[in-house]
């Protein structure tokens, strides 16, 4: 078994003493090299989990370990070097006055040598298609351009843990696929743990594992295929299944027996092709 990079042990959290618990008794592990998607209805606690992982918040109950180290006031500076995060609204995280400065910032903090910085800025900005905007002020970018730059900035620091909190929500489907391909290449190459918080079902399909949140509790955790076979109960908690799963259901209604719950067009068509050649 590979190394545990993130561990939540019975974590509960609330934003103030008078306030309701927004996470209750959450326990889970995430391993090195693993891609985990966190899904759940609005307000189910996903962003709160992300903020707990990099020590922006601390739990009132339970403990959180990152690479074996407990997250607390003393360890957060070390931990934040290992954990890269893209927030839901990129405006909240731009620090540089230009796109290029913004990408450089995290590397400067980590003492990356000058020459390496220059190449990495170039690499990461072209990886997200923003090389023409190096000297633009981040707040003058379009919504999707901001998200691309925020992703470049976090890729540049090559963290051990990368958390993307709805970081591609403003991209068109093609742009989203391209960016996620870039991220997943980096993930494979550097064996980092990738956590994507998303409402995009296509993106969920690509993860190794899914954690489903419901009202502050972990509702389920399993592979995407297992999760998406629970269509009705997912809908009851405000979620849904991808188009291909909906079509698969309609096909079953017409009397077609598929061999498995398809996750993408290729799987569905392959299954249909086999049936077709048998008739």
């Amino acid at each position: 078994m590979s190394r545990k990079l993130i561990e939540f042990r019975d974590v509960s959290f609330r934003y103030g003493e008078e306030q309701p618990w927004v996470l209750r008794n959450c326990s889970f592990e995430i391993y090195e090299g693993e891609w985990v998607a966190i899904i759940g209805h609005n307000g189910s606690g996903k962003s709160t989990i992300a903020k707990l992982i990099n020590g922006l918040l601390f739990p009132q109950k339970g403990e959180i370990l990152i690479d074996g180290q407990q997250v607390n006031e003393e360890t957060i500076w070390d931990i934040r070097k290992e954990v890269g995060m893209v927030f839901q609204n990129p405006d909240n995280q731009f620090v540089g006055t230009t796109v290029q400065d913004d990408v450089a910032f995290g590397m400067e903090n980590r003492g990356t040598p000058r020459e390496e910085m220059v190449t990495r800025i170039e690499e990461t900005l072209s990886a997200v298609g923003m090389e023409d905007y190096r000297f633009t002020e981040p707040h003058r970018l379009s919504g999707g351009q901001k998200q691309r730059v925020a992703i470049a900035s976090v890729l540049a620091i090559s963290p051990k843990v990368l958390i993307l909190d709805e970081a591609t929500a403003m991209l068109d489907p093609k742009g989203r696929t391209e960016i996620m391909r870039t991220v997943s290449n980096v993930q494979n190459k550097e064996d980092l743990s990738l956590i994507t918080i998303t409402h995009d079902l296509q993106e969920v399909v690509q993860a190794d594992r899914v954690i489903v949140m419901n009202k502050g509790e972990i509702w389920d955790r399993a592979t995407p295929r297992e999760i998406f076979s629970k269509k009705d109960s997912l809908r009851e908690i405000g979620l849904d299944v991808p188009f291909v799963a909906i079509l698969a259901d309609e096909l079953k209604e017409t009397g077609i027996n598929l061999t498995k719950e398809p996750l993408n067009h290729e799987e569905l068509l392959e299954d249909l092709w086999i049936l077709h050649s048998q008739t």
Partner: protein
Amino acid sequence: MDITFTNVSYIYQRNTPFAHQAIKDLNFHIPSGSFVAIVGHTGSGKSTLLQHLNGLVTPSEGEVKIGEYKLTPKEKPTNLKELRSRVGVVFQYPEHQLFEETVAKDIAFGPENFGVPKETINERIKRVIPAVGLSEDMLERSPFDLSGGQMRRVAIAGVLAINPDVLVLDEPTAGLDPRGQKEIMEMFNTMHKEQGLTTILVTHSMEDALKYADHVIILNKGTKYMEGSPEEVFTQKDALKQVQLDVPEVIQLLNAFEDKFSISIPFHGQTVQEIAETIHSIVKDGVSNE
């Protein structure tokens, strides 16, 4: 209200070394009562276009007409406030339009500003809160202590509360959970029909554009690349590819099906069930029942 863009260009930071042309010689006409989807790649000028609709920016060149209001490089309507009481805009990032201490005050801000009486505002709050899927116990919370999707819902509620004639939506479902996405699009669609609104939707969901819009405008690098009915526009796979866009998923699947089975199932607005039946008959019997 009818909306007309005539030779509109917009340049950010004009007359500086950083000048950037976001919109170039744009022409289109949207008749009152239409539901128009605007789609385009990152940075193609969609949000810039929308900002003209309530006079947040005025064109650098050309002319924008919204009903009787006219915007040109030299003139802004004198009654800009009146224009804004009739054109409600939901911005791309909800944080950009939330600023009051409580959710209730935030929703009341627009109508108060436009002189709507207190009781009417309270009635409207009661109506819009459930429409966006929030509960009344959130009204006294700070909008900044909400989750991303909850903020989005408050921002939408604030725009609905001004009872606009024109609804301008910049990716309004980004950040909403799947049920919220569906419910809120249905709600916009119902309002659009019942109240005879003119609705302009910027979206990256080709599915929503296909389902709700009666007209689609595709932008590329600040100019109009294509326009037409959703069925016309979304079947042109190659033309869309040129501007880095994809056809809706249902059409992608039908295309992939054709590649594999060498049988074409043309898309003309069928339901998923109807498509399943057609696929069934091809797979089982080797013939299309169409």
